[in-house]
């Protein structure tokens, strides 16, 4: 069988899925949680509780602060201690609600049973509303509010829903475990999203280094197909293991053979992509009335003896999770939130988990060392590795030369910051570091140009109206 994958670039780092046989285990509830009000792309949520208020598990504590925003729920029961700026995992101040935990009392509306609810409600609008009220955001990393993504702008139609089970970052196994242990719920979640979009086809894309997950979803689908017409048209698609397959643009290319235009959205080519964990969260919010306040996190690394996949309440301090699993290893030199390719280095272990936190990874100095920069030998390996077809060596040189116009011509703004170029470079050039700067510069220019064009259009319109008024 031909192994399907995306059409350009990509790399094959060792997948290091050393925690793949670790079952998802519930972690203890910490004594205090720090729930950030800014856990999604867009405006931070507005707090709707006051200091001293008693809250229950699943209670709303923050309302959307704008169109592009999301609800925030309490992940514990207890008393609100403070609402103030607190340092996040990277040491940046974020508006945060601190809650001292008392017991574990859940809202009565939440269905805590394990029974699978497979019937799909007829009213798509009601499902969408429940997704919004459940505070669901994209859990693949971008934390884009899901209800916004599932409301395509008028005139755009969706041809296919893609459920992203690639998990192409090395080490992370939380999605793999979710597909193996809670496959049925993920499939129901996919059917719910499919119904909201009114789309006939859905594809659950899984990289072929997860054969158990692929088998489990195939089994679940054969069981569910008779139960509701919505399950027809959902397929599993094994993809060849290659990083960054889970990138939205790459996945659409691999599954649909379509490419999103520069600056465009997936819906422009008829695609909506949702992560496996997001599908599970949709299931829980819609069928079980359980908002998004806990998520699965992989804790891994060769130097970390207690590999684990744990179910963690949102807002749990990282230090609490690590201490529960035996503490920070002696020789860990870098702790990463997310995968080793695109994750962020953690500087503050007291920072809390967010909805989108997918893993905590420990690397030794040896594993993460950057060697001294050499000379570009123009081998072109960075260009071969770039999944966007860019020429990193060229962008690197153009940024150093300060040529913004040439950077725009050579599409620096299309960079998805996957890190393939820097990973590959045999001369250890800091390609992505520099290209990120270049990308920011070009984005700024594009934005300024758009603003100027809008202002010019408005001025012209005002002038035309003034002249029209004069002639009348």
């Amino acid at each position, binding site marked *: 069988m031909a192994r399907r994958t995306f059409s350009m670039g990509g790399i094959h780092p060792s997948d290091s899925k050393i925690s793949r046989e670790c079952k998802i285990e519930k972690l203890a509830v910490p004594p205090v949680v720090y729930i950030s009000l800014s856990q999604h792309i867009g405006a931070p949520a507005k707090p709707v509780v006051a200091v001293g208020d008693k809250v229950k598990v699943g209670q709303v504590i923050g309302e959307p602060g704008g169109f592009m925003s999301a609800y925030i729920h309490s992940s514990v029961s207890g008393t609100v201690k403070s609402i103030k700026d607190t340092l996040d995992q990277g040491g940046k101040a974020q508006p945060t609600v601190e809650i001292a935990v008392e017991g574990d009392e859940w809202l009565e509306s939440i269905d805590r049973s394990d029974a699978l609810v497979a019937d799909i409600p007829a009213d798509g609008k009601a499902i969408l509303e429940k997704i919004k009220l459940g505070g669901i955001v994209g859990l693949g990393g971008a934390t884009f509010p899901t209800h916004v993504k599932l409301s395509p702008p008028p005139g755009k139609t969706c041809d296919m829903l893609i459920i992203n089970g690639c998990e192409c970052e090395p080490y992370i196994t939380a999605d793999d475990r979710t597909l193996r242990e809670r496959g049925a719920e993920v499939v129901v979640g996919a059917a719910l999203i499919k119904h909201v979009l009114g789309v006939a086809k859905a594809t659950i894309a899984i990289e072929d280094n997860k054969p158990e997950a692929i088998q489990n979803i195939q089994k679940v689908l054969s069981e569910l197909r008779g139960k509701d017409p919505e399950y027809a048209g959902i397929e599993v698609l094994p993809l060849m293991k290659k990083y960054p397959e889970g990138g939205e643009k790459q996945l659409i290319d691999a599954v649909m053979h379509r490419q999103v235009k520069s600056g465009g959205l997936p819906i422009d080519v008829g695609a909506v992509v949702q992560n496996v964990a997001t599908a599970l969260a949709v299931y829980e919010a819609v069928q079980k009335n359980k908002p998004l306040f806990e998520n699965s996190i992989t804790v891994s690394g060769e130097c970390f003896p207690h590999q684990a996949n744990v179910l963690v309440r949102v807002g749990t301090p990282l230090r609490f999770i690590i201490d529960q699993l035996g503490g920070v290893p002696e020789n860990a030199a870098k702790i990463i939130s997310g995968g080793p390719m695109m994750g962020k280095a953690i500087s503050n272990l007291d920072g809390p988990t967010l909805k989108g936190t997918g893993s905590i990874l420990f690397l030794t100095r040896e594993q993460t060392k950057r060697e001294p920069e050499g000379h570009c030998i123009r081998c072109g390996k960075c260009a071969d590795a770039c999944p966007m077809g860019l020429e990193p060596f060229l962008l690197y040189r153009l940024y150093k030369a300060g040529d913004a116009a040439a950077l725009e011509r050579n599409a620096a703004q*299309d960079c998805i910051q996957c890190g393939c170029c820097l990973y590959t470079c045999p001369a250890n050039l800091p390609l992505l570091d520099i290209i*990120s700067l270049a990308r920011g510069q070009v984005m700024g220019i594009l934005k300024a140009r758009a603003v100027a064009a809008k202002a010019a259009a408005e001025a012209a319109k005002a002038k035309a109206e003034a002249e029209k008024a004069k002639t009348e």
Partner: protein
Amino acid sequence: MEKLIVSPSPHIHSKVRTKNLMLDVVIALLPTVIVSVVFYGLGELLVLAVSILSCILIEYLITRYLLKKPSTIGDFSAAVTGILLALNLPSTTPWWVVFIGAVVAIGVAKMSFGGLGQNVFNPALVGRVFLLISFPKYMTRWEIPQGLFGADAVSGATPLGAIKEGLMQGGSVSDIMAQHGYSYSQMLFANIGGSAGEACAIAILAGFIYLVVRKVIKPWITLSILGTVAGFSLIFWLANPAQFTDPVFNLLTGGLLLGSCFMATDYVTSPMSTKGGVIYGIGIGFLTLMIRYFGSYPEGMSFAILIMNCTVPLLNNWFHQKKYGRA
């Protein structure tokens, strides 16, 4: 617990460094080196040793004492230049001529442009062509291979040289071939006169296949050179077989294989994009054949590569790889 490192992603790096790529080139050249020593004997061993050691020494001296920077000999690129220079010389070249070639290759063609990655021309070829023009006496004295412990060297013409001379005297290609007793199997496996590295086509191709399989180089430049030479010489040969040599002869003689597999594919002096590489290869193939057929030199590979080296910045500007989501 150590102090934590905080730096931007990615946090892991491939194990392949410049050094590894250069070592792969050295490994790919080993069959050719071994065959050349076996065929040409201790004289070739001396040429190789002088060339490699002087290239490394000159790069070391220039980086340490002239540029006052950390030495770059650890990346093995100077060693690769040394091997290629040696393979491009007759095995009878005196040691001091080899040394001058190394000075020109590393000192002039490489370091004066800024060192690794900055040079416009292939350093080994600049060294070779400099010697060819400056010391024609040594550079055109070809030895018929006598083996490692063979008798004294016997001088003779290279097949390309013999053909050129014979044609000028009014002979036809087939007569000259018969007169010298050249056969294609001989050319494929060795035993024809020429630069040491040109001795054995099979050894060169083995190295080329190794580099392609290890993904050190892509095959397109080499294939487009070979394809162009084969295609154009076929046309000329069909038109007048008495005057023009046939495609197989052109592919197997002179520096064509060594040049197309190891010199034209040099990262630094070849185009970045596949499209650019193919055009670069067509240019090299075409120029080589034109020089062989119509020029006054019997061999044209070195000149063709150096001329096409000049076009690389332009080709890089014109041809880019296809970008995602853009026409």
